[in-house]
């Protein structure tokens, strides 16, 4: 600019004053300047309509959203690493949740095959026992009831226990008559079984009811414990995500310190300064969430074939259930929200340390 000035001096003398220029046909006048252009206008905000303000506001939102995304894609490797860290932190508890809901499903199907052994009193005759059996078989919460006479029971014992010799030496049959009841299991598993058990034991002919559901209870207990564990783990990992995003945002703020200072000095509100960083956090969260959903889909797809084979071996119709579309969407939403919160915390902590206030 400076160097080429001597070559075209005619353009310059008192250019600000208003001499005519090749570009601009300005009137050749000295003192009264172009009022309409130079007039100070006082409070800027007062002359803009609400509509303009809203337009500017939404424009800045979309600008910040797009620009922060582009910035992220501008350093793809770095961003990918952050996304992966977030994705893993999200995928881990999500995978465990899915696995446990699958285990619960298995537990349910196993309960179907559980049965209640009702031991009858010695004085119960075979006829009474048969009556009882047919009465129970009609109950709505019972699928099937089978009568096993003491003789049958002894036979089974001889065959099944390998203690046949011992049984042969017995003077009389020590075994009671048994009715095997197969319950119908609805929603609330252990409780329904317990109430059925109580109904059966109330009959005067019944000596004892053995509900072989210890394992059902254990499974439920285990799942409850495991679920709590997963919740705690998810909480910890969410904290990790917050920290990762917080740290990333902190560095972004540090990198753009000059810009923040200048923008503040020309009158940017805190919301304006904050906005691009909040979007950055949101995109980190959403990106991590999408990656997590992909990781989960791949993982369950990879597992589903061997699980199906295994289930077939046990004649089970069990199939591994991965995350559905809606659930994946929820996952991404939660991840995005977490990212936003992480960014908010980082911004609250670091943005206001930058002077001027």
């Amino acid at each position, binding site marked *: 600019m400076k160097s080429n000035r001597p070559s075209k001096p005619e353009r310059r003398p008192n250019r600000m004053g208003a001499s005519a220029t090749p570009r601009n046909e300005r009137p050749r006048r000295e003192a009264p*300047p172009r009022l309409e252009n*130079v007039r100070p206008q006082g409070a*800027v*905000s007062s002359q803009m309509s609400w509509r303009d303000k809203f337009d500017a506001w939404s424009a800045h939102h979309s600008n910040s959203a797009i620009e922060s995304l582009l910035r992220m894609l501008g350093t793809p490797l770095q961003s990918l690493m952050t996304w992966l860290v977030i994705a893993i932190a999200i995928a881990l508890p999500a995978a465990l949740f899915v696995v446990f809901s699958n285990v619960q499903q298995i537990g349910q199907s196993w309960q179907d095959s559980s049965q209640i052994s009702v031991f009858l009193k010695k004085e119960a005759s075979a006829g009474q026992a048969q009556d009882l059996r047919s009465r129970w078989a009609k109950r709505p919460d019972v699928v099937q009831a089978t009568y096993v006479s003491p003789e049958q029971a002894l036979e089974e014992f001889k065959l099944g226990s390998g203690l046949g010799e011992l049984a042969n030496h017995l003077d009389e049959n020590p075994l009671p008559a048994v009715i095997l009841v197969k319950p119908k299991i609805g929603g609330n598993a252990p409780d329904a079984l317990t109430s059925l058990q109580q109904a059966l034991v109330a009959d005067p002919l019944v000596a004892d009811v053995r509900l072989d559901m210890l394992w059902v209870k254990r499974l439920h207990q285990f799942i409850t414990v495991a679920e709590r564990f997963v919740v705690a783990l998810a909480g910890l990992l969410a904290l990790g995500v917050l920290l990762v995003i917080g740290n990333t945002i902190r560095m972004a703020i540090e990198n753009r310190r000059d*810009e923040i200072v200048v923008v503040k000095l020309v009158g940017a509100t805190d919301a304006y300064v904050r906005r691009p960083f909040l979007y950055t956090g949101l995109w980190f969260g959403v990106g991590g969430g999408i990656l997590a959903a992909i990781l989960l889909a791949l993982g369950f797809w990879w597992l589903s074939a061997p699980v199906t084979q295994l289930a077939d071996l046990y004649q089970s119709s069990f199939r591994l259930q991965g995350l559905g579309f809606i659930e994946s969407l929820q996952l991404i939403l939660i991840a995005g929200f977490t990212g936003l919160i992480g960014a908010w915390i980082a911004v609250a902590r670091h943005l206001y340390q930058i002077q*001027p206030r």
Partner: protein
Amino acid sequence: MIRFETVSKRYDTGYEALARVDFEVESGEMLFLTGHSGAGKSTLMKLILLMEQPSNGNVFVDGHHLARMPKSQLPYFRRNIGVVFQNHQLLFDRTVYDNVALPLQVAGYPHQEIGKRVRAALDKVDLLDKERSNPMTLSGGEQQRVGIARAVVNKPTLLLADEPTGNLDPELSNEIMTLFRQFNEVGTTVMIATHDVELLKRMNKRVLGLVQGKLVHDGVLW
């Protein structure tokens, strides 16, 4: 427009950059601030813009008692002040156009309005042909003029210029001064820090003289 009441500024280092400064500037005035390097000129301007807070005394600007200004008011207050920074404070990650547009974007002007005003401001500092350049590729004087365009683009009521002509040759410096004078003539209060004595003589305006943080002169030249 501006009133300093026994204002002192002691930095965290313990250095007293301003000592009991008193003066008042009427609305629509144009004045200069002079003194040797380190006399406190930039510090005084920073107090007006609330980039720094006084350790003692009160500063009033445009009817606001700055110490009592709520934080939420600050951005709107700053939008009425155009500042030419001594070190330009340009952003090198965007074009000249975007640098000049910044105050308007921040204030939420509509797109077309921004375009009009930015081009008018760039035209005034004769940089219209550089609007797509990165400020990094400009000369020192050109960068300074971008800073000037950014300061005036919002048509502020108060214009603070810290060494606006430091990197400019006399001819260009005169043009910038004429520009400032035009702004002043239509009502903008203009305060310019400089150590260019020739310029002070030529302009023949009120001069505030600082020596080691003390106000030693107030009036038309000495």
